[in-house]
């Protein structure tokens, strides 16, 4: 029986940062779309940026004020960082495996017998200001850079020789988001019926992006 997708929740023993996060619902989840593997962390967000950058080219002409602007779509770049805190050996080992799974999500899936790597989009859910629309709880991205940064000033947990776990580590994510698209007429009709918006003709949902 092949192994199914992993769904790894956060560590919570009643005293940890995970317990507080569970109580408040502050949980960020990453899903590797190609495999279905999921991993969650307490959403101890340190910083966040959501940049919508029109892809434009400008041309100027003599004696004509203001440039001529041509726009070819818009890119959405997201970056944020969060910390993972460890308060016990058990929690540190659990979180190490969770962080490992997140780092592994930067790698592709292979088809057996073939060498083609299938890169995976990552679905990020749980951050209220990172949602595709008011009816969605997630945003799908491809991550361009993921960094794992130890904070030695906070100290380490050293249960035995050869094992070292940081008390605090920072994960930073830089990603480009996929913009949600309305792909069929039924969806447009449902917007008119359910949301009371007439003549919605944009390719993305009317509540995109949703920050609240």
């Amino acid at each position, binding site marked *: 029986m*092949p192994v199914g997708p*992993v769904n790894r929740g956060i560590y919570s023993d009643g005293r940890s940062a995970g317990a507080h996060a569970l109580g408040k619902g502050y949980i960020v989840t990453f899903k590797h779309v190609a495999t279905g593997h999921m991993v969650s962390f307490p959403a101890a967000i340190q910083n966040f940026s959501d940049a919508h950058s029109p892809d434009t080219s400008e041309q100027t002409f003599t004696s004509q004020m203001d440039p001529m602007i041509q726009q070819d779509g818009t890119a959405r770049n997201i970056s944020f960082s969060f910390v993972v805190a460890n308060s016990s050996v058990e929690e540190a080992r659990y979180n190490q495996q969770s962080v490992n799974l997140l*780092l592994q999500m930067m790698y*592709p*899936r*292979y088809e*057996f017998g073939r060498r083609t790597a299938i*890169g995976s989009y990552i679905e990020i859910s749980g951050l209220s200001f990172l949602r595709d629309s008011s009816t969605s709880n997630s945003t799908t991205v*491809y991550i361009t850079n993921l960094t794992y940064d130890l904070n030695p000033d906070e100290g380490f947990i050293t249960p035995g020789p050869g094992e070292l776990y940081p008390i605090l580590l920072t994960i930073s994510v830089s990603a480009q988001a996929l913009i949600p698209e309305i792909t069929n007429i039924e969806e447009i009709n449902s917007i008119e019926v359910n949301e009371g918006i007439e003549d919605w003709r944009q390719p993305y949902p009317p509540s995109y992006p949703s920050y609240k």
Partner: protein
Amino acid sequence: MSYQFSNVETSGRTKYFPLEITRVSRSQTGGVEPTEEFSRFVFLTTYNESFEATWTVNDSNFGAVNKTFRYSQTNRKLSLSFKLPARNVADSKENLDFCQKLARLAYGKYYTSLDGSSITEFNRPVYNYQGALFDIRFNFGNLIRNENVYITEFSFTPNFDAGIFEYSATPVTTENGTEPLGRLKDRLFSESSSDLPETSYTSHGDLGKIYPKEVEVNIGMVILHDYPLGFGGPRREGEPLKWAENRNRDWPHGTGPTYPVLEYMTEDEEALPELIVTPEDPEAEQDQPVEPQTTTRGREELTSEDVRAGRGAQQQEPVQWTVDEYGNIQVLNY
């Protein structure tokens, strides 16, 4: 391991781990043999691993909401900095020696034969550059586990504010006569004399030299993996969601020998590729260039579509195939 102040060494051995560097070479039997090894307990100040995925964005229709994104590969880069404090002259000398060896890892590999063809008319040797060093392995506890690395950056900064160990010519009278203090301490330390406690070796007899009490080192590297990374793949037949390495260990960072790995990381029995040549053949274990071979697709291999379309034996097409490194037959002209 070379000398290190006893407190640091004891603490390192019982609780932490050293930074170990090994240069390796491939032996004739295909194994890996160390050619140089050095290590030291270091005081970590920064540790930053970066996983950079390359995605190409293809041009698509003008104004398309989403472009076409195509994944290529992922690079793992590591930036590491640490301090090397010294409590005495010997400690400082060993720190500097360690840094010298590390610095040399940033240079490529050169060779000169010293015969006539490699010496110019001005008696200068001619060096042939043989490329970057790809034979370096780093081991640093459960953070870097004997990984093959390529050094991209090295910097060495003595911290003079922390102080230095200086030369001392102060005359000291001993049973053998008068001797400069620094030289006396050098001699007593080299003889492992109990007359010189570790913390008293604070001056030396090397005129004009200073030994810093603290140095800071930054190293940047790219980690090169000699095993597959991803999910599924050639070592995971029938298990597309398991980690490709198939070694029953956590990756990239370890969790110790007693903590169980997650099920998707557990090791599967790996089917070995069939031996194509007979073992008696002395050439069997040597790599042979893979030549595409040709056979003919017979009637029994015709698909139902072929039959419906009336393609028969008279239209047999040659099928080119080869055997890849995993023993799988790869058809080249589907």
